[in-house]
């Protein structure tokens, strides 16, 4: 099953399970969504449960917040994460803060689904990975699954969660295939805030989320040919961040590299590195290494875009540099 189909199945099952769940977004109905995640759902569930919106992110995110405050469970699709910027006030100033500002009497059980990522020559304004902006904000939960099973399980968990959840997808991931549980009950649910060791190893800890996990797995395979077994950890959730799983690993390996598609500065790597340095100071053989996208607005030209992205070769070079600093390789 593809990542896209896994998302669709999760939405379908949750629409079925809970009448309060509804979908909202630009052209997600008749047109079935820009990336076809909601294909077939409008036909099946009708315009009340799968609502088309005008091109007005601030308006329909705000509407979602209102609906959630009154007890519904909206799943709002933002066509790509780049368009959420016009709705930042709604997300950061309202969705994130309402529960606490109302003393916990009102919750905002809303999911915002949105894809990010680069690599399709969509240039500077449409190629971003902005999840850290939300992971930075107390009151929000942020998840970014890398496999169909996690996409399925986390989306269902997010819809059932009483806090606003930013559900970060990735354009390249939509066609990735992988198994998901056959059972449509709760077996496939994936808890928010729990990382997953997707490849075990004792020599180097590689930490990533979303599509970068796949890149790290490729790099780990390459390193294994040199006799280095890298452990790859898929964070899955950025907020809350499961630092324990990373720390357990780094205690064993003594070496840690964090890769992300977004910019490194103030990024996931910065956060993980700070926490690992504190928790694992006496276990480290070298400082935590970070790999991220080039600190530029994404260029349009294909060779420049490839050069700006933290692709496998760049991650591998960083891993080798880290290992060299440890006197091995």
């Amino acid at each position, binding site marked *: 099953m593809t990542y896209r189909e896994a998302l669709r199945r999760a939405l379908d099952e949750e629409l079925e399970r809970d009448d309060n769940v509804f979908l909202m977004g630009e052209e997600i109905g008749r047109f079935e969504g820009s990336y076809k995640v909601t294909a077939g759902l409008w036909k099946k569930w009708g315009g009340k449960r799968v609502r088309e919106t005008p091109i007005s992110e601030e308006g329909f995110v705000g509407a979602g917040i209102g609906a959630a405050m009154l007890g519904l469970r909206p799943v709002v699709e933002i066509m790509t994460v780049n368009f959420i910027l016009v709705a930042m006030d709604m997300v950061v100033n309202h969705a994130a803060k309402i529960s606490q500002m109302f003393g916990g009497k009102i919750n905002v059980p809303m999911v915002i689904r949105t894809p990010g990522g680069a690599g399709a020559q969509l240039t500077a304004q449409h190629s971003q990975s902005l999840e850290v902006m939300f992971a930075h904000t107390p009151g929000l939960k942020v998840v970014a699954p890398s496999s169909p099973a996690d996409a399925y399980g986390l989306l269902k968990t997010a819809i059932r969660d009483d806090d606003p959840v930013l559900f970060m997808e990735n354009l390249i991931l939509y066609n990735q295939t992988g198994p998901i549980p056959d059972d449509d009950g709760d077996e496939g649910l994936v808890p928010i805030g729990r990382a997953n060791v997707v490849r075990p190893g004792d020599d180097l800890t590689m930490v990533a989320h979303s599509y970068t996990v796949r890149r790290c797995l490729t790099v780990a395979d390459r390193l294994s*040919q040199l006799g280095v077994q890298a452990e790859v950890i898929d964070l899955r959730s950025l907020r809350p961040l499961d630092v324990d799983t990373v720390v357990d690993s780094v205690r064993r390996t003594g070496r840690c590299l964090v890769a992300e598609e977004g910019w490194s500065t103030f990024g996931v790597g910065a956060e993980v590195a700070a926490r690992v340095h504190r928790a694992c100071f006496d276990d480290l053989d*070298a400082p935590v290494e970070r790999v991220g996208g080039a600190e530029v607005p994404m260029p349009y030209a294909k060779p420049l875009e490839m050069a700006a992205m933290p692709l496998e070769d760049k991650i591998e070079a960083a891993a080798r540099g880290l290992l060299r600093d440890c006197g091995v390789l």
Partner: protein
Amino acid sequence: MAEELVMPRLSDTMERGTVARWLKREGDEVHAGDVVAEIETDKATMEYQSDLDGVLLKILVGAGEVAELGAPIAIVGAAGEDVAGPPPPATASSALPAALKASPVARRIAEEKGLDLRQLAGRGTGPDGRIVRADVDRLLGRPVLPVPPPQAPPPVMAPADAEVVEPSRMQQVIARRMTEAKATVPHFYLTAEIDMGRAMEFRGELNEALAAEGVKVSVNDLIVRACGLALREHPQFHRSYIDGKLHYHPSANIGVAVALEDGLIVPVVRGVEAKTLRQVAAETRDLAQRARDGQLKQPELEGATFSVSNLGMLGVTHFAAIINPPEPGILAVGATVERAVPRDGEVVIRPIMAVTLSVDHRASSGADGARFLQSVARYLEAPILLVA
């Protein structure tokens, strides 16, 4: 109050020293100036004079043991004084000098295993010599990552029936220095053939004239003197590349390789450009003799700005020598042999000597080396210039 005798710096390149033997025992009285021990450096064995008065209370570094520069090797104090107090730094396992860089996990493992990380000083394989886990693991005999890459050559295996002997201090130094030189100095080699006919006549005449004084000038002395003059002429060659800087040498100090029974030592003839052949000959002879007797002093082995190695007397016609860093080069001298050479359209028999100059390419280019070599040839082919 007890005080410490520390491992002294006895040569420029010394990083650690071995206590060859103690001449005083615990309980012996010592006075400032007394020779208390002999210390082996990377180049020679030297006497170590106490700078303290008192009683040698405790020897911290026994004969045959190694200590880093500045590390305490013995305690001197008043008779009966208690030296058990706080342990001296030499025996403390965890107190590391701040300058010793080690990764946190390397420090932790060392502490857990009671390992003194100072034994790894200068041998860390991390950035800027940082001691990392792999270094500690290696010391503990634990497996170290990674298994060698597939393209790595198979490990050197000694034949099972070979007799295994610990190399002497000198052999260890030669092994280390030559490996360093070949690994870090980009060598290139220039070979030239020099017609030694006139040089041999000149030497014959010279030795006849000096016979009464008992002085004998060798071919090698002529070569050393020629090199001294040529070095002065070619400052662009007579310079060393050290830590990214070029050091121009004001004076030609030439190391002359002396083969020993099982090793090699290179005493230095200083200021060759300003010395007469007679002086060069006498000094070289004296240095070589004392080298064979093991009587050289450390300063006599230091400060060379060029070296000459001659295997001609052993029948070698041509070889290439390894540079002794930071010297800019070394001249390898082969045997002078009679060869048929074309001269003015005729084949004549001439005594020909092949020399090969090894050059540090960081310090000079091929043309610099070639011009130097040309000068050396010119002096030897017109040897009157050696005394002009």
